[in-house]
């Protein structure tokens, strides 16, 4: 690895981050398996968050560049009008309005 003695190359980035990101993919795969294994999997898989999760996996794989931004945008509320009230509202991490 060239850093900290010089600029890194893409192969250095692969070298530095491969194992930890391999581990993150394993966490995601086992998260999906865990949902399958527990009672009520169909209900969970119909939830807007699960559907959004599948969508951002596709975006991560299929977007040629700026994947992080594309994932963020896919999870965002695309509307522009203010809410009438925030009472009892919370953030979920995916936009509920996207659910069909």
């Amino acid at each position, binding site marked *: 690895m*060239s*850093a*900290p*003695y*010089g*600029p*890194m190359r893409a192969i250095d980035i692969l070298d*530095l*981050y491969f194992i930890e990101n391999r581990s993150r993919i394993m966490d995601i795969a086992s998260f999906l398996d865990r949902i399958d294994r527990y009672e009520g999997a169909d209900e969970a898989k119909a939830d807007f968050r699960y559907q959004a999760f599948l969508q951002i996996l596709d975006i991560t794989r299929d977007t040629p560049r*700026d994947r*992080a*931004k594309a994932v*963020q*945008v896919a*999870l*965002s*509320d*695309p*509307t*522009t009008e*203010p*809410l*009438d*009230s*925030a*009472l009892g*509202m*919370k*953030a*979920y*991490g*995916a*936009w*509920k309005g996207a659910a069909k």
Partner: protein
Amino acid sequence: MKAIDPHIHMISRTTDDYMRMTISGIHTVAEPAFWAGFDRASADCFRDYFHQLTVVEPARAARFGIKHYCWLGLNSKESENLTLADEVLAIIPEFIDRPNVLGFGEIGLNKNSKNEMAVLERQLAMAAARNDLVLVHTPHLEDKLKGTRMIMDMIRNEPRLDPSRVLIDHAEEHTIAEIKDRGFWFGMTLYPNSKGSPERAIDAVEIYGSERLCINSSGDWSVSDPLSILKCANEMRRRGHGEAAVNQVFYENPKSFMGQCPKFVAN
């Protein structure tokens, strides 16, 4: 190295945290007024909170050789209640001229509601009338993109506010470019396992440059790490960035932004 944490909720941290921060090189911090993790019962609670931020906490920090500055305002999570908002905004003038207060913050939006917008608008007007600095909280998760745009539009509708005196915090991949393009400072917040990571923050430095960027821990009462800015600095270093560039991001930048307030002197 020396570093400044421009956004950390020290009232939630222990003296052990102060000790670890000071021996690690964090000698200056700024604490925005925010939600306590529960809705407060009355404006009197805010009077106590503002006293804590302007008197108690700077004294506690000083015992560790750390300079403590703060920002005052009503956070967006408690802005839905307009009666409470009236009362809290009325007591801010009692505290805003205290020696460690840098300006209004963290004010902003949470769920992007009409009441949140009304309370933010009033606080922006108060800051503009005094020519104070502003630290903006943007919503989290799915509400961030919409809320960040709404906030920037509101600030641009207040011509007395100069974007170079406003920091839009909790920026992420989908909001940074729009914030920078409009001339604001932007903040990136490091959370151990929910939102921003050191790797992604340094990606942003590489993609967007370090100009007008402040990186913070937002260390508070929830899962957070008061040393995370130093871990992020180390991430920058291990990718081969030089010490001067690291120092620029983690010391000179927050010093430049907050130094626009004449009360601010970095340790």
